[in-house]
């Protein structure tokens, strides 16, 4: 009565899951109002306008998923990827002097640029966690400082989508042959941000449009001379990665000269979450909606910064509560998800006046999946034999660590 897919559909990006860079993940994903380096390409491109030196950063992260579905551990791939970022304050003159900054940030998985993985509809899986880290992300942004307090910015987040056709047929000798064509095309999502900075209070807001990576491959067969059974046209289509529309606002308060406290609220429009797979043939009954709902994610963090000789040291702590957008999966869909508590810790060291001006940041993040049970409602199924399971519980945790090294140029 119960079949379990030990891996799940792939949705959303590493940056949405863990944050981006060396500082923000240590602050539970905050930093929107106080970042002015390459992390701003994801958090709030307005911050790029406040960059004062050219810098380049490389880094690495590793994440381990211990996801338990109905008492069994899933085989979710670990997150392993590199972070590349840079910021360039543009040396323009006249009215644009010291007002414009460019930035870029890449997350490149070591093994897979993109992953489309989804079980059969109804088979239980971690809908929003499994394989989310297996997608390349490219962020590019520009920031403009309006005056001493205000800055605005815009950017794009690019993902890749796969489209194609495959024709399977037979040659005159009866052998199978194929004609296939695949195209990898970009799907771009804009990002807009604004920041206001006072001596002790920094405010920021970001509007991040949905970014998604779809796949759509049409398969047709013409095997009439060899196989006496004709296949219908088959459409292999769905969504591999999805980040929802996000509107985030943050305040950073410099409580003491060496202590920064930040709080963020992010609205995420998960109600537009698409189906991981679409029906491959027209005769298959509709799958029904995912039933996901919008959420608001609160994040808080504290950062203590002190000098030690020529070095500047930072100690960071953060916490976030990540509401699950998935309802209890009582019907045909089994897109499982849990509320998560996120805790983070990190350190940073910078030697801005050294011969080689280095910045080193390291962080560890833990995400605890709160226990949840999903019970199927037999009344929602026409045929009791199609109920994939009676009850499935989910729990687990994720541990992620990262380190980045940057240099001022």
């Amino acid at each position, binding site marked *: 009565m119960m079949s379990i897919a030990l891996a799940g559909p792939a949705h959303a990006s590493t940056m949405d899951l863990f944050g981006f860079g060396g500082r923000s993940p240590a602050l539970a994903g905050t930093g929107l109002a106080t970042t002015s380096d390459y992390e701003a390409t994801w958090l709030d491109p307005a911050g790029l306008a406040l960059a004062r030196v050219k810098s380049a950063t490389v880094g690495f992260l590793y994440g381990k998923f211990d996801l338990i579905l109905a008492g069994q551990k899933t085989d979710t791939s670990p997150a392993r990827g590199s972070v590349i970022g840079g910021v360039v304050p543009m040396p323009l003159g006249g009215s644009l002097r010291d007002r414009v900054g460019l930035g870029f940030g890449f997350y490149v998985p070591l093994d897979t*640029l993109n992953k489309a993985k989804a079980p059969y*509809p109804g088979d239980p899986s971690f809908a929003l966690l499994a394989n989310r880290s297996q997608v390349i992300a490219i962020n590019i942004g520009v920031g403009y400082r309006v005056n001493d307090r205000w800055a605005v910015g815009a950017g794009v987040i690019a993902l890749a989508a796969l489209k194609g056709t495959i024709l399977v047929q037979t040659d005159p000798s009866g052998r199978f042959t194929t*004609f296939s064509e695949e195209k990898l095309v970009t799907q771009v999502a804009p990002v807009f941000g604004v920041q206001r900075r006072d001596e002790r209070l920094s405010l920021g807001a970001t509007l991040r449009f949905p970014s998604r990576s779809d*796949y759509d491959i049409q398969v047709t067969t013409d095997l009439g001379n060899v196989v006496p059974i004709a296949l219908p046209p*088959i459409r292999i289509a769905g969504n591999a990665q999805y980040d929802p529309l996000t509107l985030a606002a943050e305040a950073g308060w410099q409580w003491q000269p060496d202590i920064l406290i930040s709080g963020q609220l992010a609205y995420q429009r998960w109600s537009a979450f698409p189906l991981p797979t679409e029906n491959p043939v027209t*005769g298959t009954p509709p799958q029904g909606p995912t039933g996901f709902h919008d959420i608001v994610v609160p994040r808080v963090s504290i950062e203590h910064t002190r000098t030690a000789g020529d070095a500047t040291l930072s100690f960071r702590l953060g916490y976030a509560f990540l509401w699950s957008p998935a309802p209890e999966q009582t019907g045909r869909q089994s897109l499982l998800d849990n509320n998560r508590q996120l805790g983070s810790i990190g350190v940073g060291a910078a030697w801005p006046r050294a011969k080689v001006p280095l910045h080193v940041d390291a962080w560890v993040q833990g995400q605890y999946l709160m226990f949840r049970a999903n019970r199927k409602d037999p009344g929602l199924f026409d045929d009791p034999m199609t109920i994939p399971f009676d009850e499935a519980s989910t729990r687990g945790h994720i541990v992620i660590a990262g380190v980045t090294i940057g240099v001022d140029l």
Partner: protein
Amino acid sequence: MKRAVIILIALAHQAHANPADMFGFGARGAAMGGAQVAAANDGTANYYNPAILARLDTIRIEAGYQIASPALKVDDLDNAVDSSRGSVIDIAVPGQLAGTRFTIGAMIFLPDEALTRLRNESAQKPRWALYDNLPQRLVFGANAALAITDDLMIGGGISYMAATKGVVNLRGLVGFPRPELSNLDLAIDVDLDTIQYPVAGVWYHAADWLDLGASYRGGFYLTIDLAFNLKGDVGSPGQPPAVSNGHVDLHTVSQDLFQPAQWIVGFDARVSSRAHLAMDLGYHRWSTFQNPSAHIDPPDLDLGQFNQFINIPPFPPLPDPHFHDILVPRAGFEWLAQDDDAHRWFARAGAIYEPTPAPEQTGESNFIDNSKITLTAGAGYELKHGLGEIIPRPVSFDLSLGITELVPREHRKVSPVDAVGDYRSSGHVLEAGILSRWQF
């Protein structure tokens, strides 16, 4: 028979050009025949020779557009192939690291149609082997360069591509005799695996009048490795199935989108106060090119009572294409035509000879390629003082034009009963590009 060949090629929608590998990156380089391994002087060095990035002392951003329109013919009939067009963007950001010049940069050629396109067909189907998928791909790289001394620079970087591998599972009911009544569910596990290839270069200021350069561009090939598994019943909904728990498993592998490893050496000679002469010689390792045709393993199937009607002969091994390595000479010339307080005008020209790596297609395969002669020309205009106080540094605009002539070639089949028969390939490609270059 010749008519059949022409139709087959036309149906394949083949032939394009990779503006970076085949026609240059950026309008200045393209106008100089791509002879830039020592002569590049801007962010296009990201592509030609990343070591040159360490020479730059201002931020460079370049953006432009390139197009190549081929007219490739078999037996003098145009195959109506697609053109290749896309945007060129690069950036170089110089700085200092421990008192040494250090530059980071990135470049991208972004095709209009798609980041990459993989297309494969049956082994015998004629195709323009070098013009089929090569031009339909993203060219993307990130580089860093370091000045070892004032005269010696090194640089390198990584470029990324993706190969497809995975499995598609279908289960349910296949409608028989009415396939439109099928009821199938889909599960998918497909990865775009990371393919990385290196780029490296060295540049040496040998004398006041002479610069030397060398670069290496790694090779790669992309594959499509897909399995399709269909399990379930065959019959009509609500009726006893004609086949219970049948299955059809297909596995297809094909190699396509190949780039040969390339070693390039060259020089840039200032033959007068107004003229540059640049020459490159590239070694392209085409001998590693594999047959790009689709290969399907014999299907594993069980269709119950229908098994007795199915007899699928085994798929023969794909023939080796027998490509060979080639040397590609390039020459470029740049003349400073006018230089006053505010403006500079440049005239440029170049030539390329690219012998074909493909042997004459005498057997079953039909990987058509010809030796190529390319002539290029172009012009550049520089505003020495930029665009006023906001952008006070030089701004340039470049134009390039080119024509590649494919030396006509006969393909004579050994077998008198060859399914395709003898044919003659020829054609030309017209290229054009524009580039704006900005210094900050």
